[in-house]
């Protein structure tokens, strides 16, 4: 303890005779002037006197020259956002690599998404598009209702799912009835429709592909394409 006191005295003496000290005096004056100008009219707020400044800056100078760490060290205590959230794995909807993603849901809302470390494909990592999956759901610009643009119209209007699905079904039926080919020019039965095409996606899973293929073949569609080939 005595050693420390001697050290402090030594430091103060050392500092008192170096230019640093005078620099601080100058600073005090600057600061005092600044406050005087700022709170000229208020008066009440101006509680700091010149003596206080001197005391403050000398103590600060001494402390800083010892490089004492005065910042209180605090342990972080805040709950994790995905704590107790339901984990659901999904396949990334973008490219055909098929990275696995964990979706964290709480009360029916998606709270976070991240790569699935158990997946042998991506081992927990993701590309920027896959990383952005969170905002695919939680996005003010997300389209929640079908939009319809009538022929020759230049504006989109919101329509109901029932209306949209009915219209699609109606048009498919009309087109199919009109252009259905029962037999080709050589008289062979072909039962096909060449006026409709289907474009699939790289992000469809096995089951979806199976159902789509069944539907398209049942309709007689032969132009069954894939997004990655276009």
């Amino acid at each position, binding site marked *: 303890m005595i050693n420390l006191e001697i050290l402090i005295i030594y430091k103060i003496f050392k500092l008192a005779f170096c230019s640093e000290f005078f620099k601080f005096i100058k600073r005090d004056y600057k600061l005092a002037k600044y406050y005087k100008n700022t709170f000229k009219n208020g008066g009440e*707020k101006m509680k700091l006197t010149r003596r206080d400044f001197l005391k403050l800056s000398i103590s600060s100078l001494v402390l800083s020259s010892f490089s004492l760490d005065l910042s209180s060290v605090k342990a972080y205590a805040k709950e994790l956002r995905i704590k107790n959230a339901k984990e659901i794995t999904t396949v990334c909807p973008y490219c055909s690599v098929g990275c696995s993603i964990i979706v964290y849901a709480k009360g029916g809302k998606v709270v976070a998404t991240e790569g699935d470390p158990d997946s042998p494909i991506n081992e927990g990592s993701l590309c920027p598009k896959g990383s952005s999956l969170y905002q695919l759901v939680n996005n003010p610009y997300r389209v929640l209702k079908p939009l319809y643009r009538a022929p020759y119209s230049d504006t989109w209007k919101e329509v109901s799912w029932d209306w949209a699905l009915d219209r699609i079904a109606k048009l498919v039926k009309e087109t199919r009835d009109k252009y259905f080919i029962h037999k080709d020019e050589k008289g062979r039965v072909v039962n096909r429709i060449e006026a409709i095409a289907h474009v699939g996606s790289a992000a469809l899973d096995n089951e979806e592909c199976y159902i789509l293929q069944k539907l398209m073949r049942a309709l007689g569609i032969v132009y069954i394409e894939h997004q990655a080939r276009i």
Partner: protein
Amino acid sequence: MARKALLITPELCIGCRSCQVACKSWNQLPAEKTKNRGTHENPPDLSGSTYNKIHFIETTDAFGNLKWLFVSQRCRHCGDPACVQVCPVHALQQDKETGIVFYDKSICIGCRACSYACPFNIPRYDENGKISKCHMCIDRVKAGLEPACAKACPTGAIRFGDRDELIAQAKKEGFKYIYGEKERGGLGVIYALNEPPKVYQLVENPKVSEDVLALGELLRGLVKKGIPVDASIVRKFLGSKETLVRV
């Protein structure tokens, strides 16, 4: 829990910026409207809603061949953080176990003293004037998870782990320069390089002026006395930023 760190290997980075997106996704930060500046580097700078970003450097090697370097820019989580020492209200804190420099926005008074203190020019402020910077996903780290950027990185250019182990690993892999091993009390974000840090535009010998630390004490005294501290006083008191930080 030993001191944690991120090991960044610019040579492995492909500049996909998955780390940037993962950071925004986890911290729920909004996007920024930017414009084409003739570079793929985007957004142009760290901000209140961008905690980390990849800095794209176009340079030439000794033979005149074009080299495109990608360096992760973010808070370095110094072992001896000047921002924590200067903060008058203890809004910035260093975690005892992991050495991560984190912050509490509800305490921050927006005096911007940390911005003056930081030798790496990292602290930024959100729309309310409160401190915002990389906090190494301390909420995740404390729960035993790795930070969002390290988790998302597809090439292993950002690795997370115990600091000593990461340094040993980088040395074993034969990197010539380990930036951040000694700087500022040992950085929490270590760069494994084969070329001098200057090539990657990293600050060599980052220094903090004694004045800044003294200012911290002074501000703390002012706060204790109930005198309002704001950005203007810091600016007025210290003069321009450049003359102070790069002493």
